[in-house]
C-alpha cells in the first residue's frame, strides 16, 4: 500500500495528476457519463459544472472508487489504475470532501483522524493532534484537534476533513458541493483554502452550483451536460475574461441556447403584484414564541395578505427552521397566536392546518420531505393518505393514484423514469418539483417555502422561483425563508430579517432594501 501512494506522490511535474480517458458509465437506461476525457493538473483548482443530473456525481464516484467505469480508464500520475474501492483511491492520494460532513459527531477531530488507522494500536491522540495542527498551519488555517466535532460549524468540520485528507497524503482533493451548505463567510474561507492547496502544487476538483464561486476560485472549468463533456475554459481564457464574461460563457455552455431565459435570474425586479394594504391578511402571526435548545424563537409578528410574498432573511441557524416547523405544526408553540383566514391554528394538528389551507415546502427534502424507498406516486399523496378518491373505505385505488401521479408529473415537469420509481432515486431538482406538486394545490391558502432553491441547479432554481411567483399570483399568502439575499430581493414584497430567533426588522422591498437588510443582518442599528 505504501508503494502505491509513493507512486502517486512521485509524479512527473509536467504531467496531469489524474486523467480520465474516454470514460463512460452506464446505468440501466441511462448513460450517465459518455466518453469523458479530462486532465486534472497539479497546481490548479479545476471546477466541474453542470446541472443536476449532468453526470458530475457519477464522475466523482468513479474518481473516489465508489463506482467503476463501464468503459475507458482512469490514470493516476500517468499510470492506468483500477480504482476498485474507496480505500484504493485513498491509497493513491485521492481524497474527497462532501456537502455533508463525514466526521463522527461524538468524537473529537483528532479521534476522527485516528479512525482510519490500525485498530490494534492505541491512538496516539497527542501525536495526531500535533500533526493536525502542523498540517493545518501549513495550509494557513487553525483548527482545534481537541474540539468535539458536534460543537463545530459545518465550515470548520469541512476544514478538518481537508486536513484529514492531507494527513493521509492526498495530493488530489475533490470538493463535491462542499460549499453548498456553508454560510457565505465559511464558503469564502473554504475558497481561499482551495486556492492555497492549489498553490502548494496539489490538484483540486471543485464542484459547485454557484457560478460566482466557480469564477472566483477556479483556474480551469469543465462543463458537463447530459453526461457529455460540452466544453470548458482553460486557465488562459479564464484569466483573459472578466467575471461577467466568464459567467455568460459558462451559462452558454451549461444551457446551450437557453441563455436568454437564465439571464432572467439576474434581472431582479419582476413586475410587482399589487397588494391591497386594507385587505384582510390570510396568515397572521402574533407574538409567537417557540422553544428550542439551541435557538429559541420569540417575538415573531408577521401579517401576510393575499398575493403577498414576505421573505425571511438571515444566516442559516437563526431560528428559521424552528419558525417554519412551528407554523406547520411540527413543533409546539409556547406562546402567541397564528391565524389562518381568521381561524386560530396554533393548537391544531399538522393535518388540520393543512386541511385549512396551510402548506409547508420543507428544505429537508430527503430527510422529511419524501420517503425515499416509496414510489413517486405515493410520495405525491403522502399528506393525503386515506382521502378519496385515492383511497375508498381505506382501500388503495391504484388507478386513481396513478392518474394523479401522471397528472402531477407532467404539470410540474418532474423528470422520472416512471411514477413507480422510488422517489429517493430522483435528482434534487426533481424531488423539489415533487414537493411543490404536492404542496401547491388549489385549496392552498398560505405556503411556507423553506430555502426552496437551495442545492438546485440554475434551471430548477428558475422553475422553483416561478412556482413561488405563481402561488402569489394565485392570491395565496407566501412566506419565503431563504438565505440567498438575491432571491429574496427578486421575489419578496417585504423582507423580514431574523437573527438569533427574533425578527429584528421588516423592510419594504425597494431600492434601499439590499442595504437595509444587509445592515439588519450584520447587526447595525440594534
Amino acid at each position, binding site marked *: 500500500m505504501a508503494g502505491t501512494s509513493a507512486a502517486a506522490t512521485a509524479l512527473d511535474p509536467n504531467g496531469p495528476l489524474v486523467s480520465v480517458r474516454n470514460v463512460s458509465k452506464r446505468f440501466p437506461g441511462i448513460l450517465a457519463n459518455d466518453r469523458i476525457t479530462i486532465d486534472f493538473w497539479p497546481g490548479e483548482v479545476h471546477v466541474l459544472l453542470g446541472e443536476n443530473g449532468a453526470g458530475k456525481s457519477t464522475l466523482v464516484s468513479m474518481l473516489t472508487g465508489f463506482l467503476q467505469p463501464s468503459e475507458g480508464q482512469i490514470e493516476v500520475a500517468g499510470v492506468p489504475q483500477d480504482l476498485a474501492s474507496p480505500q484504493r483511491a485513498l491509497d493513491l492520494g485521492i481524497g474527497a470532501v462532501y456537502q455533508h460532513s463525514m466526521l463522527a459527531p461524538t468524537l473529537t477531530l483528532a479521534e476522527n483522524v485516528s479512525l482510519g488507522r490500525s485498530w490494534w494500536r492505541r491512538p496516539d491522540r497527542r501525536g495526531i493532534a500535533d500533526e493536525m495542527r502542523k498540517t493545518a498551519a501549513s495550509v494557513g488555517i487553525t483548527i482545534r484537534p481537541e474540539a468535539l466535532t458536534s460543537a463545530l460549524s459545518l465550515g470548520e468540520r469541512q476544514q478538518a476533513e481537508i486536513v484529514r485528507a492531507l494527513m493521509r497524503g492526498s495530493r488530489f482533493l475533490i470538493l463535491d458541493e462542499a460549499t453548498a451548505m456553508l454560510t457565505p463567510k465559511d464558503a469564502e474561507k473554504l475558497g481561499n483554502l482551495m486556492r492555497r492547496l492549489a498553490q502548494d502544487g496539489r490538484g483540486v476538483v471543485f464542484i459547485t452550483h454557484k457560478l460566482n464561486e466557480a469564477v472566483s476560485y477556479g483556474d480551469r472549468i469543465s462543463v458537463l451536460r447530459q453526461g457529455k463533456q460540452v466544453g470548458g475554459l482553460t486557465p488562459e481564457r479564464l484569466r483573459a475574461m472578466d467575471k461577467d464574461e466568464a459567467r455568460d460563457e459558462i451559462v452558454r455552455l451549461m444551457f446551450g441556447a437557453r441563455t436568454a431565459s437564465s439571464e432572467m435570474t439576474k434581472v431582479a425586479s419582476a413586475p410587482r403584484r399589487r397588494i391591497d394594504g386594507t385587505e384582510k391578511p390570510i396568515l397572521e402571526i402574533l407574538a409567537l414564541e417557540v422553544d428550542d435548545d439551541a435557538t429559541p424563537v420569540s417575538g415573531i409578528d408577521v401579517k401576510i395578505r393575499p398575493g403577498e410574498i414576505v421573505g425571511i432573511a438571515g444566516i442559516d441557524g437563526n431560528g428559521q427552521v424552528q419558525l417554519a416547523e412551528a407554523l406547520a405544526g411540527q413543533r409546539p408553540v409556547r406562546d402567541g397566536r397564528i391565524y389562518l383566514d381568521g381561524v386560530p391554528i396554533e393548537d391544531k394538528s399538522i393535518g388540520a392546518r393543512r386541511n385549512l389551507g396551510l402548506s409547508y415546502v420543507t428544505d429537508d427534502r430527503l430527510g422529511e420531505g419524501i420517503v425515499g424507498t416509496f414510489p413517486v406516486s405515493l410520495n405525491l399523496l*403522502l399528506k393525503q393518505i386515506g382521502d378519496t378518491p385515492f*383511497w375508498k373505505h381505506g382501500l388503495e385505488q*391504484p388507478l386513481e393514484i396513478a392518474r394523479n*401521479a401522471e397528472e402531477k408529473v407532467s404539470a410540474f415537469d418532474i423528470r422520472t423514469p416512471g411514477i413507480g420509481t422510488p422517489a429517493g432515486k430522483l435528482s434534487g431538482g426533481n424531488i423539489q418539483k415533487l414537493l411543490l406538486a404536492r404542496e401547491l394545490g388549489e385549496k392552498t391558502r398560505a405556503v411556507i417555502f423553506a430555502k426552496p432553491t437551495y442545492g438546485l441547479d440554475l434551471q430548477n432554481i428558475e422553475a422553483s422561483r416561478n412556482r413561488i411567483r405563481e402561488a402569489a399570483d394565485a392570491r395565496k399568502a407566501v412566506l419565503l425563508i431563504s438565505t440567498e439575499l438575491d432571491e429574496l430581493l427578486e421575489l419578496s414584497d417585504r423582507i423580514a430579517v431574523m437573527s438569533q430567533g427574533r425578527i429584528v426588522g421588516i423592510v419594504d422591498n425597494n431600492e434601499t432594501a439590499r442595504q437595509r437588510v444587509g445592515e439588519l443582518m450584520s447587526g447595525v442599528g440594534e
Partner: protein
Amino acid sequence: MTSEMAIAPDSGENERKSRLNMRDDRLHFLIITIGPVLATLVIASFILMAMGVSPLDYYGYIFQRGMLSPSGVQATLTRMGPLLLIAASLIVCFRAGIWNLGGDAQFILGAVFVAAAGPELVAILPVWLMLLLCLSIGAAAGAVWSLVPAFLRAYQGINEIITTMMMTFLGGSLANVLVKLVFLDPETTVPQTRTLAVSDRLPRLFDTTVSSGVLLGLAAVLIVHFTMNRTAFGLRLRIVGANAKAAVHAGLPVATLTVIVFSLSAGLAGLAGAVAVLGQTGNVRADWNPAYTLTIVPLVFLARFNGFATIAFVFLFSVLSIGSESAARRLGVPNYFTLVTMATLLILMAVAEMIDQRRRKRKEV
C-alpha cells in the same frame, strides 16, 4: 428495508429484453432459495455422519414423518397455526419499523390466561362462545403486556428492543407463577392448569386431527399482508417504519400509531398462545415455554416480510421440527439437532441474501 411495490408497470419498450432478464432473475431466485436448503442438508449430513447416524435414514425419516405420513402432516399443520400467528405479529411491527421482540412473553401469557379461562367458561357458555371469548382473552393478554414498552417508545423514545426483551423475562416468570400458584389444577401432581377437553377445543378440520388454528394463522398472515400493502392504514404504518421524520412532516400521529402497532403485534402473539392451547395442548404446564418468536424472526426477515413467502418458510420449519421430534425418539439423535439444522439453514440463507443483494447492487449500478 423493504422493496416497495411499484403501482404502475414500466412502459413496454424494452419488453423483450426485460422478459429475458426476468427469466434470468427467476433462475437466480430459484438458486438463491433452494441453494441454502441443499447446502444445509449437506453440512448437517456431515455432522450426522460424525455422530454415527446415516443422514439418509435421518432425513428420510423426517420427511417421511413430517410430510408423508398422515399423522405427521396433521401435526405439522396443527403446529403451523401458532407459528403463522407469530409471523403475522412480527410482520406488522417490523414493517412499521418497530422491533417487538417480546413475543415469547406475549405468547405465553395469552396461553396461560386462555388455559385458565377456558375450562371455567365452558361450564357456563356454549363452546363456540367460549372459544371466541378465549381467543379475545389471549389477544388482550398479549396486547396488555406490550403496553409498557409501547408507551415508553411512543412518548419517551426508549428503545423497544431492550424493553420488550426485559418484559419477556418478567412475562415468562409471571406466567410460571400464575400456573403454579393461581391457576393450578389441584387434581394433578404436575404443576399445570386444568385441561380443556378435546371436544371443547378448536374444531378439527374434516376427519383429521388438524386443528382449525392453522386456518386462523393463514388468515392472519394474509390479512396482515393485504392490510400492509393495500390499505391507507398499512401505508401509514409503513411510512412510520420507513422514515419517521417524513411521517411527522406528513402529519401522521406517530405516537398513537406506535401504540397501535404494539397492540396489534402483541395481540397477534397472544392470539398465537390462545391457539396453541385451544388447538394443541389444552392446558399450560409450568415448564412449557416453546419460545417460538425468536425462531420465527429470521424466517420473517428472510421472507422479506412477504406474507406468502412467510407461509412457505413456516411450513418448512414445521415439517423439520415435527419430523425431528420423532426422529429423536427413533434414531437417538437429540431433539436439539433440529435447531442445528435450522440455524445452519438460516445462516446459509442470510449468506444467499447477501450474495443476492450484491448482485442487485451490481445490476443497479
